């Protein structure tokens, strides 16, 4: 099929648009990276000199060791808990038809459709009344709201792929639900569980709103600490804020790259087959 001149021009225009977007995106990341190593950078394309001092400054001044520890604790707990709660629920949703299943499905869809800041403010209020806000436990609880339904929606198609006769055979040989899960389902579901939990990990590292609304001075994760660093820009050299931003970028992007070995990039957006 020969394409007309107009169609070819249109194709070029569309690709130019994509290229323009990607170039600006990479330049945005690149300028943060370059600035974090700059001694000083004024009216030139590149900084006058390079140094690694901003990283040690950020490491000490922002208290990065503590922040990273909190981040690991929060993310680890959220990943484990949402897996433990979400995977069995996905199994039940995939295998059983029960009255009110539609309503339960809607219940799981809502926290993914409603943006975090909308439900985060009432949730933070409740957690403050329960004296949980400001603590690591409060942050973990708040982060479970989007991650548990997320795990369920990702896992349902994975469960549906398993032949029910495999489970029936295990039941015939006398396996209870516990053994069925540990010895049959979890090994078969490993790719799905890895994909779901890695995506939960990436999302929780980057989850700003819920953590911001429910954390206190000792329960900040990296992204919240980065927000406060940018918010108070001017107090510290811009390069040390960018150094912290680079630490944050590396933390998220490493896990993103690992996650992308198991999932399609578009799955991060479309959440699950609906």
């Amino acid at each position, binding site marked *: 099929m020969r394409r007309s001149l107009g169609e070819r021009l249109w194709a070029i225009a569309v690709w130019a648009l994509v290229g323009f977007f990607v170039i600006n995106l990479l330049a945005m990341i690149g300028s943060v990276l370059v600035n974090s190593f700059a001694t000083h950078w004024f009216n030139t394309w590149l900084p006058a000199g390079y140094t690694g001092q901003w990283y040690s400054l950020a490491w000490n001044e922002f208290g990065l060791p503590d922040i990273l520890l909190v981040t690991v604790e929060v993310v680890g707990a959220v990943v484990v808990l949402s897996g433990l709660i979400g995977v*069995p629920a996905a199994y039940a949703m995939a295998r059983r038809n029960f009255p009110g299943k539609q309503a339960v499905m809607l219940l799981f869809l809502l926290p993914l459709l409603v943006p975090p800041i909308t439900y985060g403010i009432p949730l933070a209020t409740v957690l403050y009344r329960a004296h949980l806000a400001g603590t690591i436990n409060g942050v973990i609880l708040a982060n479970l709201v989007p991650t*548990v339904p997320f795990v369920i929606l990702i896992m349902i198609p994975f469960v549906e792929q398993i032949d029910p006769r495999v489970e029936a055979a295990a039941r015939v040989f006398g396996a209870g639900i516990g053994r069925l899960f540990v010895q049959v389902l979890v090994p078969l579901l490993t790719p799905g569980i890895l994909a779901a939990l890695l995506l939960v990990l990436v999302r929780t590292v980057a989850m700003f709103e819920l953590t*911001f609304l429910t954390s206190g001075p000792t329960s900040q994760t990296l992204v919240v600490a980065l927000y406060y660093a940018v918010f108070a820009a001017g107090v510290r050299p811009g390069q040390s804020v960018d150094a912290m931003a680079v630490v944050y970028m590396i933390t998220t992007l490493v896990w993103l790259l690992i996650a992308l070995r198991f999932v399609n*990039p578009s799955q991060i957006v479309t959440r699950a087959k609906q």
Partner: protein
Amino acid sequence: MSARLSLRRRLRERGLDAVTLLVLPAVVTVLALFVYPFLYGLMLSFQPKEGGALANYAKFFSDPFLYNTIGITLWIAIPATLLNVVLSIPVALRVRLMRSQRLLTTILVIPITLGTVMVAEGLLTYLGPRGWLNRTLLFFALTDSPVRLVHNYWGVMLSLVITGFPFTFLLTLSYVTGIDKSLEQAGAMLGARARQRFTRILLPLLAPGLAITLALAFVQAFTVFPSAILLGAPAGPTRVISIVAYQAAFEQYDYPLASAIAMLMAGVQVVIIVALLAARTLVFRGPASTGKG
């Protein structure tokens, strides 16, 4: 014993057995941490610090400093949403023809993963008066003095494009790849030009997906928060509704007022989503996807 067994059996026939109970922990989690706080917030919004049950809402709609935030937020969210979705359609239609989409989709998923705070810091460096963008504009003599793109409306708008366009694009791409290619080929064989194939075949088939994309993209843009503070002018042109809700809760400690504002945010979102989904049922003309999608 037999009565118990038959009850269990009857329950099982309705799909309720031990396996079904595995859904309970997740249901309890969402009920306790999502539904209950929402209802609690709704109740709390009718128990203002002073005045009658509706005092919080009356306060919101009588103080221009508060009610103007709805207009300000819509003034940012609607153009950003439309721009992202309108740009996504031609790009997704083009990318669907690519054999290997993986590199492009991986690059585009980066800003979504980094999140709004990181994008705000990146744009502050990149769009600032001494950043690479202004340097390029000055180099090519496209401007005499640096263009101001941060700490104003445009900073927030650009951050919504950087994080929002990849989102709408990936969503649109997943809907576009669900459309059977032979439908378009049939159109071409019957002599339809590219424009006609788009308006007569692709667009009607894409409409239901586009309605969902628009709804999700709008809801995200409407709740813009960190970039409105970091990249915008949070005291004026980008004083969005989430900022006043946050300030009411965590600066004035007026939780009832904050809850009322959060409920109004949810209300605007619901109105827009219902309107879009209602429009979707008006234009929906039957299933278009063929297995894939």
